[in-house]
């Protein structure tokens, strides 16, 4: 199994297509912030524009759920929609050359290289991008452990898992993070 490609994504889409309100909440809560950050990195930190783009992307995705065939990770599909949306905004906002320039450089980037389109080799950006590419549970457990400095016991309690299961989750999350980071930050750079 690809650690960055959770196997329950098709199930989430199926639930959305059946009209499951819980699936809508899950989809929105997990993907809106991630698409917002994906867009923000590409519009030179313009939060307001990124919020608009992310909103449009999620609307577009919900309109065309039946076109998602599970051939790529859901996040990858949403990022493709996001690129299209930004290119659309680029055409609309012809009077904003700075944004257009950023978007054009993005469109030139290799489509297969998901996050390299950040065209920014800053490690920090790559870390943040890698976190957004991980399944939500992985990113969440890493943030709890290393940014909030929570103990494994405390995380286990909050997540309602056993300590052993939490340790195992952390191990998988670290492995997936390393893989994502190296992919995004380029093979030439090694981890510190």
């Amino acid at each position, binding site marked *: 199994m690809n650690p960055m490609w959770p196997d329950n994504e098709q199930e989430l889409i199926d639930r959305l297509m059946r*009209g499951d309100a819980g699936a*809508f909440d899950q989809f*929105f809560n997990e993907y*809106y*912030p991630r698409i917002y950050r994906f867009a923000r990195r590409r519009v030179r930190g313009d939060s307001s524009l990124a919020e608009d783009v992310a909103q449009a992307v999620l609307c577009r995705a919900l309109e065309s759920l039946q076109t998602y065939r599970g051939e790529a990770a859901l996040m990858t599909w949403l990022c493709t929609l996001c690129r299209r949306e930004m290119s659309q905004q680029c055409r609309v906002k012809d009077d904003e050359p700075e944004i257009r320039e950023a978007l054009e450089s993005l469109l030139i980037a290799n489509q297969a290289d998901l996050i390299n389109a950040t065209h920014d080799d800053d*490690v920090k950006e790559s*870390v*943040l991008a890698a976190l957004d590419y991980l399944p939500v549970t992985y990113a969440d457990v890493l943030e709890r452990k290393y*940014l909030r400095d929570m103990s494994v016991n405390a995380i286990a309690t909050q997540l309602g898992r056993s300590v052993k299961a939490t340790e195992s989750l952390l191990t998988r999350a670290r492995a997936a993070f390393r893989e994502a980071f190296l992919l995004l930050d380029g093979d030439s750079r090694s981890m510190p």
Partner: protein
Amino acid sequence: MSKDTESVAAEDAVEKLLKLAGHRDMPTEVAMTRARIAAYAVWQQSMQHRKAPRWKRYLALAACTAAIAIIGSIFMLQKRPVDTLPVVAHVAVVDGDVGLQANTDTVKAAINASPVFANTQIVTGTGRIALTLQSNLSLRLNQHTTVVFIDAEHARLLSGEIYVDAGLARLSTPLLIETPVGEVMHRGTQYRVSVIGDATLIQVREGSVQIALASNREALSVGVGEQLRVEERGRVEWRAGLGGFGSEWDWVTKLASQFDIENRSLGEYLSWFAREQGLAVRYQSAQVERIALSAHLHGAVNAEVANVNLDELSLITGMSIRRQQGVIYIAQN
């Protein structure tokens, strides 16, 4: 390097990287809410379109036409009992005659504490009604209002005026009110929605309300003291700096439930009273506030009797409690 040493080093590297990057940015709460409303509206619409492909719709239409006589006759003979439908609310206060019509049943007069079932249309005529939803949200309907309750989280305002008070609790699924110009949702708030002719008005007393416009899917946010007027043809007008009290809110206060003050503190009562009236509460000092919170009352009161209550309270408590414009001032005599 041993395998253990390697894994510790790898873990350290992950930790260093994450600490270097810090927390991830989050979109603002307002943007999240706006996006959620817009996405929800699109999702609902797309599901309706997706439900039946065209050929299936034709087939369904043919089947419906053929079956309509049979269904009709069965329906006439054995209509689904209303009380098997889910209860979405209960009547809290009725002022005058208000009609409830559930599931095409005959119209019944609303009485206190009676249940309101899903698919019920409420027509207030010259009366008014206050309802408590299953989620504890308070809903009040002014005169000449027609509302259809589709379920506990979804109402359709056809005409007239609704007041929503979500209380202080945050609801996981807020009430969605459909209007002719779009869908209205809130987050922990007090507000009015009116449909008058081809215009829909939203005025917010507390919190914020979002409307996803049906015309262009734009999501607008209305804040405290603001009024948004949207016409069906798409024209939008904003007004700001409006108070949450005054004659246009009087009908709302008339429908307030009684407040059981038995063993509740003066401070609690004043908070409730101010909230019902759209007022703010100002204490002369922290000490006065502490006294108000420790002074206990007995009995029951109604918010409608406004200033009379405040005068009585002043006499009973020996404190100066007076209302001036949109504020209740409490001081020591």
